[in-house]
C-alpha cells in the first residue's frame, strides 16, 4: 500500500503538471480511541478514524487555491488537484506569499511512536477505567463517583511540497484523566488528576485515582471567600493556562505582525519576573507534543522564548517569517483539516525551567492566598494587555499564614498574564513538574492574583 508521503508527492506532482507554479500537500491518516466514563460506568466508547488530504496550489507568482478531501483514492486526489487549481486561477494575488518552505535536514524522532501505546485494546482501556473508578471508591467512603476518559491518538502526518520538502512521521500518544466527586451534592468536593505520555506504560491509574479522591474528600464543604487580590499557588495545570495565553497572545509572529501581541515593542525588555526562563523545545521528549518537524515540514528545534524574565524571540512559520525577512522557527500549526489556529504559529512545546521549591514550601510562604488546581473557560478580554478572565475548577483552598485553611467555592478571576507573571515568588522544583498538552512546567507561587467574582458551588 502506498505510504502517506508517496501520496502527498503524487498530489504535488499532479498539481505541478497541471500548471501550478508551486504546490504543497499534507496528509493525515489517524484515529482517536476514547473510553469515557461517568457515574462509575463507561458511557461512551468511541473510535474515530480520520483521513485528510489538504492540497494547496500556487498559480503564477502568488495566487493560491486550497482543496481538502477525506479520501486518498486516485479519483479523489485527481479531483482535488483539479479543484485547487481552478480555485487558484480565480483567486487574486497574495503579496505576502513568497514560497513554501525549502527542504532542510530532518532528524527522525522514532520515540514518538510506541507500538504498545498505539495498540491498546478496548478491553485494556475498560480495565484501566475500572481501576480508576474502583480505586477512587475504595480510597474513602465519602467518594461518590468519578468521571473522565482514557484516550489514545495515533496517526501518520506527511508533508510534500514542490520545492523538495518530503517529511513523514508516525506518532502515538495517550492521555487519561479523572474527576472524582465526594460528599453530598450540596457540599460536593471535587478532585482532578490527568496524565499524558507517549507511552501508556508510564501510567499509574491507581495513583491518579487516589490523588483525585484525596483532593475530592479534602475539598468537601467549600466556602465563599471575598473577591479581591490574593497570593496564589498554582499547580502546573493552572500555570499552563497562563503560559498558553503568553504563547498565543505574545509569542506568535502572527499576533505580533497583526499588531495585537501583548509583547509588541517589549521584546528585549524586563516583562516577566527574573526567575522565569522558558524555552520551546519542539522535539524534546520531555514535552507531550514532541515532533521532528512542524505542520509544513520545517524541522523543529529549541527556541528560547524568555531568559530571566526577558522575552527574546517570536515563533514563526514560513509565511510570517518571509514577511519579516527571517526564517521559520518551525512553529507552523497542522494544516490538516480546519484547525482553529491554522496559520497562527505559536509555541506548543513550552518548557519552563524549574526552581527548587516544594508546594508545601509555597504554602508556608503564603500569608493570604489560594491554592488552585486548574482553571476553566478562560478567554482574553484585551489581547494587547493579555487581560484574561476565567474560573477556578475542582479543588481549591484558602491559605492563611502558611496553612491551608479550608476549601473554597468556584471563583472568577480577571487579570493580566503580564502582571501575574511579573511577580513570581517561587518556582517549583523538578518534583512538581508535569507534562501537559502544550507545556512542561512546575508549580508556581505568584504574589498577586485578582478574583473578581464568585460562583455558588
Amino acid at each position, binding site marked *: 500500500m502506498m505510504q502517506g508521503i508517496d501520496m502527498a508527492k503524487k498530489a504535488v506532482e499532479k498539481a505541478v503538471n497541471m500548471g501550478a507554479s508551486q504546490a504543497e500537500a499534507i496528509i493525515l491518516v489517524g484515529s482517536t480511541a476514547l*473510553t469515557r466514563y461517568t457515574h462509575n460506568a*463507561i458511557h461512551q*466508547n468511541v473510535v474515530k478514524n480520520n483521513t485528510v488530504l489538504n492540497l494547496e496550489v500556487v498559480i503564477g507568482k502568488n495566487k493560491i487555491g486550497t482543496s481538502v478531501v477525506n479520501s486518498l483514492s486516485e479519483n479523489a486526489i485527481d479531483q482535488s488537484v483539479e479543484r485547487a487549481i481552478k480555485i487558484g486561477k*480565480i483567486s*487574486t494575488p497574495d*503579496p505576502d506569499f513568497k514560497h513554501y518552505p525549502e527542504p532542510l535536514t530532518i532528524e527522525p524522532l522514532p520515540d514518538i511512536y510506541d507500538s504498545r501505546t498505539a495498540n491498546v485494546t478496548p478491553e485494556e482501556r475498560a480495565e484501566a477505567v475500572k481501576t480508576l473508578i474502583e480505586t477512587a471508591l475504595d480510597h474513602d467512603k465519602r467518594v461518590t463517583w468519578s468521571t473522565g476518559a482514557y484516550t489514545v491518538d495515533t496517526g501518520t502526518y506527511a508533508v510534500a511540497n514542490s520545492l523538495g520538502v518530503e517529511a513523514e512521521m508516525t506518532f502515538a500518544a495517550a492521555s487519561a484523566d479523572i*474527576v472524582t466527586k465526594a460528599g453530598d451534592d450540596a457540599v460536593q468536593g471535587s478532585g482532578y488528576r490527568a496524565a499524558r505520555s507517549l507511552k501508556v506504560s508510564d501510567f499509574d491509574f491507581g495513583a491518579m485515582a487516589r490523588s483525585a479522591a484525596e483532593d475530592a474528600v479534602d475539598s468537601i464543604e467549600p466556602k465563599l471567600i471575598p473577591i479581591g487580590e490574593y497570593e496564589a499557588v498554582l499547580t502546573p495545570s493552572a500555570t499552563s493556562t497562563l503560559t498558553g495565553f503568553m504563547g498565543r497572545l505574545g509569542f506568535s509572529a502572527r499576533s505580533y505582525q497583526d*499588531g495585537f501581541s501583548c509583547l509588541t515593542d517589549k521584546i528585549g525588555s524586563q516583562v516577566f519576573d527574573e526567575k522565569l526562563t522558558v524555552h520551546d523545545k519542539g522535539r524534546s521528549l520531555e514535552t507531550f507534543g514532541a515532533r521532528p518537524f512542524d505542520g509544513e515540514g520545517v524541522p523543529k528545534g529549541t527556541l528560547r522564548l524568555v531568559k530571566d524574565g526577558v522575552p527574546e524571540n517570536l515563533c514563526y512559520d514560513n509565511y510570517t517569517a518571509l514577511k519579516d525577512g527571517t526564517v521559520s522557527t518551525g512553529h507552523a500549526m497542522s494544516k490538516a483539516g480546519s484547525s482553529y489556529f491554522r496559520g497562527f504559529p505559536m509555541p506548543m512545546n513550552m518548557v519552563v525551567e524549574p526552581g527548587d521549591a516544594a508546594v508545601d514550601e509555597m504554602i508556608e510562604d503564603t500569608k493570604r492566598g489560594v491554592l488552585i488546581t486548574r482553571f476553566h473557560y478562560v478567554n482574553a478580554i484585551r489581547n494587547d494587555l493579555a487581560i484574561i478572565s*476565567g474560573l477556578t475548577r475542582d479543588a481549591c483552598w484558602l491559605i492563611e499564614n502558611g496553612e491551608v485553611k479550608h476549601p473554597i467555592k468556584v471563583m472568577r478571576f480577571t487579570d493580566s498574564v503580564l502582571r501575574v507573571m511579573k511577580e513570581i515568588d517561587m518556582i517549583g522544583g523538578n518534583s512538581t513538574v508535569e507534562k501537559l498538552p502544550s507545556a512542561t512546567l512546575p508549580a508556581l507561587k505568584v504574589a498577586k492574583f485578582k478574583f473578581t467574582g464568585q460562583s455558588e*458551588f
Partner: protein
Amino acid sequence: MRKELAEFGLETAANLGTSYADIRFVDGERRLVSVKNGNPDNISHTSESGYGVRVIVNNGWGFAGSFNVSKDGVKEAVDLAVKLAKASSTTAKGEIKLASTKTVEDRYESDVKKDPFAVPLEDILETLVSADEAFREVSPHVRTTSGRLLARVEGKYLATSEGSRIEQRIVFCGGSGQGYVMESGLVQRRTYEINPRTMGWEYIESHDVPEMARDAGKEAEMLLKAEPCPTEIRTNLILDDPHMYLQIHETIGHASELDRVLGTEADFAGMSFLTPEKLGSFRYGSDQVNFVADPTIPFGLGTYGYDDEGTPARKVYLVKDGMVNDYQSSRETAAQLGLEGSSAGMRAATPVDLPIIRMNNICLEAGDSWKADEIIAETNEGILMRTTKMWSVDQRRLNFQFGCEVGWKIKEGELTEMIRDPTYTGISYEFWRGVDATAKDDWTLYGTTGCGKGRPSQGIYVGHGAATTRIKDVRIGITGRL
C-alpha cells in the same frame, strides 16, 4: 450505494447480537472564502464522505466512525463498534432504555433558492474585497482587516435497526468581517456579521456587505476616541444584536442540555445547575422570559427535519413564563428522566463523530408589549452593548462574564456617548430574572457555526433568536484597569 451499505451495516450488527444499531452516512461540502487585508487568506473547498455506526450490546454503547465508504469499511466499523460496546458493558450499571420515537421513512431539505456552490468564486471574492476596501476607506487607523463567507451543504442518510430511513439535505450560508484599528498603543476591533442561516446564497445577497463593513469601520475609528467602560457600576443593560445569541447560548443553551445535567459531560465541558428537581419549580427568569428549543423555525441555523437519532424535530419550552419547564434531550436521557420523549436534540458534527445532545435553535421568544425603540426611550439610565469580544462561564453555567466590542451610555431615553471595552458579569438565573422588557417588533435569528462540546471535541452549527431586551441591575465594568 449509501442505502445498500446501510442495510448491510444494520444486518451485520444484528448478526453480532446488538439490541440496537444505527448507521448515519454524511456527504458534506464546505466552501470558505476568506480575505485578509484585501488579499485572499484561505480559499478552500472541503469534501467529506463518511459514516458512523452506533450500537448497543449487553447494555453497553459502542461507536465507530470511518471515511472508508465501502462494504469492507462498513464491516470493519460495525465489528469495532460491537467490540467497543462489549467493553463498555463490563461496567454497565443497568439497562439502557431509549424513549420511544415513531419509525419513519422521510426526506427533508433546507429551503434553498440559490445554490451557494453555483455562485462564481470571483463574485464572492469581489464582495469580500469591496467590503475590505469600504472598511479601510473610513478608517485611517486600520491595522488589519479580514472577512469571510462560508457555505455548507450536508447530505445525511440515517438508518436505524428500528426501521427508520431518513434522508436530509441541510444547507447554510453566512459570514463576517472585522477590522483592528490602532492609535497610540490602543487597539480596538469592530466586527460585522451575516448570521448564518439554513438558506441559499440569496441570503448573502440580501445584505449590502460593503455597507456593513463601512459602518463597522466608522465605529472602529470612533472607538479609538471613546471613553473606557465605567467600572464597577450596576445599571440597566440593553442587548439588541448578535451578542445576545451568546448570552442565551452559554447561560440557558448549555445549561438545559440533559447530558450535562445528568453528568455525562462532567469530565470536560462540565455539568449544569438546572438539576432535575428544579423542573417545574425553579424560577429561571422573570415572567417575560420564555426560552424554546425549536428546530422547526424556518431558516434557523439549527433547523432540520430529524435529529441524528431519527426523532422528528419538535418545539420544546425550556423555560415558560420564567419557570424551568423542560430539557434538550436524547432518547436515552429522556428515558432516564421519564420525559415524554426526546427533544430531538442529538447531532454529530462530522460523519465520523458520535451524536450527542446539541442545541438546535435556542431562542428567547419575543415580548408582546414593547417596541424596540420604546425600550431605549423608556430607559432613564443604562448601557447598550454590541458584538461579543470575550465570554466565559463556569462549569455549572452559573457565573458568567462577557466583554463586548462597543457600548453606548443611555441617559434619559437616548443613546449618548460611545464607550469601549464594555464588560458585564452575573449569575445566570439572577440575570434572566432581571429582564423587564423584551421587544415584540425586532425578533431576529442569529447563529454560530462553532459550538464546541464533547470528547473528541465537536464543533457544530446552532441557531438562536432574540429581540431587543433590557435587563435591570447588571454589574458592569469588571476589570477596573482597562
